[in-house]
């Protein structure tokens, strides 16, 4: 009897400590690889590090170098253009497709599969495919010219003023299906009786969408915005594969800038500073969005 009860308390003790024990490796990893590494990168960004890391405090020299670097501002402008248009078109296309697909469409499953498959691809594959599609000599331009529009030019890929927009085209192609899926799930999640009530009230279908269904997608909208801005700020592989940041630096983005300064040009300090700027940007964009998301989720 006493034996079983002491064994029992041992079990109780194990149940008390096991959960913490089990979680601890992941927590330790998170502390080191996320928080520790951010601190490390942050520290590097305040040193004179170039080819090799150095750890003496040097103040804001790297940030100064970064802000005096014209190429950095090009990447920032490109991120603004790409991010803005990418998010806008993904939202528009995604919402439109979701609403259209919500009309009791035959073969909805097949269409959804088609719209969403790009999401399963690597951005490198997407970039490769669109690089070929947009090839000015043999791609879409030639197709249109062959149709008889001999003056047609579509050379965005090699046009420094337009190259960043090709990234938008490929990015929207890859991600808008995903936005559609989220919006569609949101639409399907709305209580049927709300729609019935609106129909009884005499509202037409467009009115029901405009006034009732789409406004009630607010929480989904914030989630989508969150994910899209995250994708936009981190975007690296797509640009690498599609334009490589070129022609020249015309379609460069911060992620490529960081990669090249840190790993191919031996400018660790500038690389670290640009990485910290990316982190700050993400925090600045995501935190208000998350705040709004939780607020709107509570209200609905």
């Amino acid at each position, binding site marked *: 009897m006493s034996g079983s009860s002491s064994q029992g308390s041992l079990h109780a003790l194990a149940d008390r400590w096991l959960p913490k024990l*089990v979680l601890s490796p992941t927590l330790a990893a998170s502390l080191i690889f*996320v928080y520790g590494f951010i601190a490390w990168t942050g520290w590097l960004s305040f040193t004179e590090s170039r080819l090799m890391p150095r750890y003496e405090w040097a103040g804001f020299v790297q940030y100064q170098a970064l802000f005096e670097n014209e190429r950095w501002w090009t990447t920032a402008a490109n991120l603004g253009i790409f991010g803005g248009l990418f998010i806008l078109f993904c939202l528009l296309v995604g919402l439109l497709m979701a609403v259209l697909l919500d009309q009791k469409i035959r073969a909805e499953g097949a269409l959804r599969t088609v719209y*969403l498959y790009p999401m399963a691809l690597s951005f490198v594959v997407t970039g490769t495919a669109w690089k*070929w599609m947009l090839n000015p000599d043999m791609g879409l331009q030639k197709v249109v010219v062959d149709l008889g529009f001999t003056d047609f030019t579509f050379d965005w890929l090699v046009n420094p003023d337009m190259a960043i927009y090709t990234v938008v085209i490929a990015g929207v192609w890859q991600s808008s299906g995903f936005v559609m899926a989220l919006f569609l799930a949101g639409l399907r999640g709305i209580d049927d009786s709300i729609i019935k009530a609106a129909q009884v009230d005499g509202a037409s*279908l467009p009115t029901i969408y405009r006034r009732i269904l789409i406004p009630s997608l607010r929480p989904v909208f914030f989630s989508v915005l969150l994910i899209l801005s995250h994708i936009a700020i981190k975007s690296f592989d797509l640009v690498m594969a599609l334009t490589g940041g070129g022609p020249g630096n015309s379609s460069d983005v911060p992620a490529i800038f960081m*990669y090249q300064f840190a790993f191919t040009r031996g400018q660790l300090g500038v690389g670290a500073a640009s*990485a910290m700027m990316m982190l700050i940007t993400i925090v600045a964009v995501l935190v208000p969005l998350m705040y709004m998301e939780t607020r709107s989720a509570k209200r609905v």
Partner: protein
Amino acid sequence: MFKNLTVGRALVYAALLLMAIYYLLPLYVMLTTSFKSLDDIREGNMLALPQLWQGGAWSKAWAEACTGVECNGMQGFFWNSIKMTLPAVAISTLLGAVNGYVVSMWRFKGSDALFTMLLVGCFIPFQVVLLPMAQLLGLLGLANTTAGLVLVHVVYGTAFTTLFFRNFYITVPDELVKAARIDGAGFWTIFLRILLPISGPIFVVCIIWQFTQIWNDFLFGVVFAAGESQPITVALNNLVNTSTGVKEYNVDMAAAIIAALPTLFVYMVAGRYFVRGLTAGAVKG
């Protein structure tokens, strides 16, 4: 109602069909191009079917194409990716399952805060960890190895997998765990006998998500693994952006499809779960 307006209905279908063409076109072009000869590509129309279907570009992409200095095709890198993806998916999924079980069913003082702390790992731009990680992998002798990449993917993937499992397990009534505790089951017995048997769907979701994420990764691959051990995405990029010699678009396309095949296959087989994974990750992520 749209249902009665046949014109409106037709417009809806037309719009949806147009969109479907937009999404399918690149895949079509990739496929047809990969089966064309170079002359066919140069002279013909991009949208036309191959005049002569040829598989040469495929075998070249697989075994001979140059990805930088090496000219052994994609095959080696395809296996690299497999050797990297399978263990990384397995480890991160199992860790996520156990973590999710703890933070949902065995909450303790501060466990919610710790979970939130973990979640931050889902949101950081990985650029802020690249430099220290490169240093650490060098120190551990794991630089440019598949093992190093597995470590990186496990470390940064576990935040996501924990989130997946946590969101699944909080939908399981915690009375189930209470009942099992009263029946005398301990921490591991409850996990293995009560929760694992009902976790099938979330395992599929999580494995698919991790598989696509890790297989498609480019950033970690290009930074931490060069040359021999690079994953297929990096090799593809090198192949496509190598500027020496004649550009062989058919080989590029075949290589791109080879790189996309595993994730496309998974999507075709388990697309339902793929969508669920994306939305599950998004809803709380």
